[in-house]
């Protein structure tokens, strides 16, 4: 995929994928006291590919199934819940930083492009 919007689309998909990741981690935090709840993780690369494919084909379906998976090796509490609150908050922060990075890179690409166009 080439063209002048290649980078903008790529970064847009990355922003989209981080936003979806934020939803998944927030859901984990919201369910920290739900008995039997299992921690979910978003597969970022798969999400990115999915989002890129959606932007290429102009799919209007904005709510496809998210590629989530259940990570192994987490200690389960007595009520069957395995959410580790500290770990999830750390994930949330990490994701927020990624979002910030991608959106700033996107903004800088767009500014450069605008400057190139208007001269």
């Amino acid at each position, binding site marked *: 995929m*080439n063209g002048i919007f290649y980078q903008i689309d790529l970064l847009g998909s990355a922003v989209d994928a981080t936003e979806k990741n934020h939803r998944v981690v927030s859901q984990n935090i919201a369910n920290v006291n739900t008995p039997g709840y299992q921690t979910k993780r978003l597969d970022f*690369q798969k999400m*990115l590919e999915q989002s890129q494919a959606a932007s290429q084909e102009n799919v209007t379906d904005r709510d496809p199934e998210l590629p989530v998976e259940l990570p192994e090796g987490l200690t389960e509490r007595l009520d069957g819940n395995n959410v580790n609150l500290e770990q999830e908050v750390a994930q949330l922060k990490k994701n927020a930083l990624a979002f910030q990075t991608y959106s700033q890179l996107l903004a800088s690409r767009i500014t*450069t492009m605008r*400057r190139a166009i208007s001269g």
Partner: protein
Amino acid sequence: MSALPPVASVNVQSPGFSKPAQAINATPPSEQGGDRNIFLDLMAQANDDQLRSEQAIDSLVSGKTEDVQQVVMEVVKAEMSFQVFMEVRNQIIESYDELMRMQF
């Protein structure tokens, strides 16, 4: 001072239209002839910086690198060299206009 070369000899790959990996090793067009054109050198360099920053963004998004500050550095450098190029171009055009307005 040599005249501006014909447009066809400006053999620059534009960013976004090509895979960045192939373009980085392209020689600047002015090295082929005997006379160096500083403006074309500047343009080729700004273009290379753009391509390199695109590659850096690509590898960050695809997870090949985790080095965010390296990527941001590349992008900022590319932005700045592009700004320099635009400014030089504007000055050249401005001086051309100035010459055109001269009354003899």
